[in-house]
């Protein structure tokens, strides 16, 4: 069943203001016996993939499966930061493709994803940081991506709560600013893609865990076993973040991935105080303020692999110590909640997007600690890859076989930390 979603407009707002309740925005579908494409994982990346498959390639016989609820994994657990100031040309092309899509996404989906280009400020605390960030600024400018170098005073002018005094434990020697960077509402991204995909006939099937990948005599993947029965599929796209290794093992494919808990936390809501996103790689902390007023703070990963979705308390405490050094005025803020998500990291800290050794089985994973920002671009190029059966040109360098050829895209060395 295909149903047109309500078109949101000033008129529809007026109508609903008069007392009419909003209808469900997407169908909670039951699984059919088979589909042209089955996508495993109903997070932002999986839903975006389904949306672009339906919209740009006319493939509408699609199921998006999730073991939990839509957007309940890392899509609902990240710190919502968007930027494209990556060093390597392959990465810059990928993340800039996403940023370009972000800029028009609310209009494209007729759903407010609250993309806010409030600027991402990356602080340099030592001589090495200064050199690395200036290199990023120059590389980005050559790639046609906005990024500029600010003096400490200019950084403070852009972000008034920042402490740049000489007594700072982590002195600010300057900062790189990407003005087009910012944040978006993470849940709205999942909801917006789900609503638009569902309206084009895509089945979104929640509480449906994949327990096996079915292969025919030639070895090709032809379907999945799930907790809601078997589902046939001409093509399968695994977009399962931290659980990708587990799913790919069902098809006998070993992955260059390790899964770690990554934590974030929010403070009690306060009046507007943080005008932008501030990131510090050296002390490993990033912070912004949500429209509800909560400070949204990202911490680091645990040292060891885990699927616990919790993370050690000492990791969050170290981050808060750093935040309080950079922003002394936040010392007395109380933290409201903290949580963890399971991120799948690759050895070069770049994602894997493309074909696998199993015909019919495609994978989009390895986004590690920084996948949210790529959501529209990731879905867009993975949809092309699934539809055409060959990697989209932007996806091509991010192939799984780069770990055999050695053509790594080493953002691990470029960023030196999680990103």
């Amino acid at each position, binding site marked *: 069943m295909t149903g047109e979603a309500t078109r949101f407009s000033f008129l529809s707002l007026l109508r609903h203001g008069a007392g009419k309740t909003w209808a469900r925005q997407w169908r909670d579908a039951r699984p059919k016996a088979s589909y042209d494409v089955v996508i495993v994982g109903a997070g932002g990346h999986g839903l975006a993939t389904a949306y672009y498959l339906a919209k740009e390639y006319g493939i509408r016989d699609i199921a998006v499966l999730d073991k939990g609820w839509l957007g309940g994994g890392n899509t609902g657990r990240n710190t919502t930061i968007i930027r494209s100031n990556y060093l390597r040309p392959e990465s810059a092309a990928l993340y800039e493709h996403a940023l370009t899509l972000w800029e028009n996404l609310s209009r494209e989906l007729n759903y407010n994803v609250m993309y806010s280009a409030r600027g991402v400020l990356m602080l340099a605390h030592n001589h090495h940081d200064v050199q690395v960030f200036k290199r990023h600024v120059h590389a980005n400018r050559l790639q046609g991506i906005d990024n500029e170098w600010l003096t400490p005073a200019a950084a403070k002018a852009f972000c008034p709560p920042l402490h740049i005094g000489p007594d700072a434990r982590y002195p600010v020697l300057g900062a790189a600013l990407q003005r087009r960077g910012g944040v978006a509402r993470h849940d709205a991204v999942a909801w917006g893609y789900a609503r638009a995909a569902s309206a084009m006939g895509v089945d979104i099937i929640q509480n449906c865990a994949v327990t096996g990948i079915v292969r025919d005599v030639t070895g090709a993947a032809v379907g999945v076993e799930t907790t809601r029965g078997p589902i046939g599929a001409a093509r399968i796209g695994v977009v399962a973040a931290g659980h990708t290794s587990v799913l790919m093992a069902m098809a006998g494919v070993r992955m260059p*991935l390790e899964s770690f808990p990554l934590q974030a936390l929010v403070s009690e809501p306060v009046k507007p105080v943080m005008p932008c996103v501030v990131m510090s790689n050296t002390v490993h902390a990033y912070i912004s303020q949500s429209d509800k007023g909560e400070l949204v703070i990202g911490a680091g990963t645990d040292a060891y692999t885990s699927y*616990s979705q919790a993370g050690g308390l000492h990791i969050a405490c170290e981050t808060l110590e750093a935040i309080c050094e950079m922003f002394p005025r936040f010392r007395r803020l109380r933290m409201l909640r903290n949580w963890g998500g399971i991120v799948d990291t690759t050895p070069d800290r770049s994602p894997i997007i493309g074909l696998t050794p199993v015909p019919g089985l495609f994978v989009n994973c390895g986004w590690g600690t920084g996948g949210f920002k790529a959501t529209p671009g990731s879905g867009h190029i993975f949809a092309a890859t699934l539809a055409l059966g060959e990697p989209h040109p932007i996806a091509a360098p991010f192939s799984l076989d780069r770990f055999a050829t050695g053509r790594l895209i080493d953002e691990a060395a470029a960023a030196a930390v999680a990103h």
Partner: protein
Amino acid sequence: MLRIPCPWCGPRPENEFRYGGQAGLIRPANPAAVSDAGWGGYLYLRANPRGRHVERWRHLHGCGRFFTCVRDTVTDRIASTHKPGEAVP
């Protein structure tokens, strides 16, 4: 924070230790004879299981020694730790 039983020093807090990833990875004796895929596999492919994981740790801020740890990656519960050379159940 985990409490990790070092086989020599007994239970100590996690921040005394350094994680070393999947245990039992053996470097091919003659790398030149290994295919690109085989070498890439040695360098990069990891089990990354959901459940029982056999892993290497080092008691860096303690006795400094390496050991093997069997941990469940869902509960983070440590089943056992073993000195090098000991059989892992």
